[in-house]
């Protein structure tokens, strides 16, 4: 599996560390208790296109990767500044 780093281009999986679903980028309001419950514990686990966060260890870039869990296609990668 290869993933696209916005700085380095396509790189091998062993250079990356997985973090989790890109939902983490969107924090609920501080007083939104059910929003925090969702944020911390519930994931959509879609069959199809999904976005998740990877860290490219050698160059220190967080990458938001769009990929397809059905076809296993890796579609694109963006910095977190672009992904937000």
């Amino acid at each position, binding site marked *: 599996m290869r993933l696209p780093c916005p*700085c*380095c*281009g*396509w*790189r*091998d999986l*062993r*250079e990356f560390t997985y973090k989790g679903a890109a939902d983490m980028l969107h924090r609920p309001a501080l007083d939104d208790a059910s929003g925090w419950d969702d944020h911390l514990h519930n994931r959509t686990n879609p069959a199809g296109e999904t976005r998740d966060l990877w860290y490219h*260890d*050698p*160059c*220190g*870039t967080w990458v938001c990767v769009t990929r397809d869990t059905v076809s296993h296609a890796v579609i694109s990668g963006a910095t977190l500044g672009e992904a937000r």
Partner: protein
Amino acid sequence: MIRLKETSAIAQLRLPTLADCTLRVLPPVRITSIAPYPGQVEALRARLGGFPAPGGVVTLQGTDLVWAGRDLAFAFGDDLPDGLAAHCSMSDQSDGWCGFALQGAGAQALLARRLPFDLRKMASPGSARSVMDHLPVLVLRRASDRFEIWVWRSMVQSALAHI
């Protein structure tokens, strides 16, 4: 005052013999990390006379500016202009790194067995951050058949074993 002698951490190690390549230890060089503050890259570029894009190397008089990560460059050499501190965070990395030079017709093929990225697409001169097995490395391509591999000095014996 006692003057300490500069030597590389790998000066005492035995280098492997390679078929059609030569591997040698690079002499110690001053390395300064340059991390631009947000929005300061252009000001820094003007002050330095250049700043490397991802994968790039900018050669200035007496100093090479090498891309070393996201928003990070390493300056190899002694000649840096004054007045940089307003634009970037700088730190001395000189004794944290050790370098090998690998030269020869088979250098690219040899490194392709150890590095998990496509060296055929690497520019010359060019720079890349990667891993050699589990070791973080900075790879510089000086010419099509000449590479420099910089590793943390604490991991230099492992790097030699991998090469």
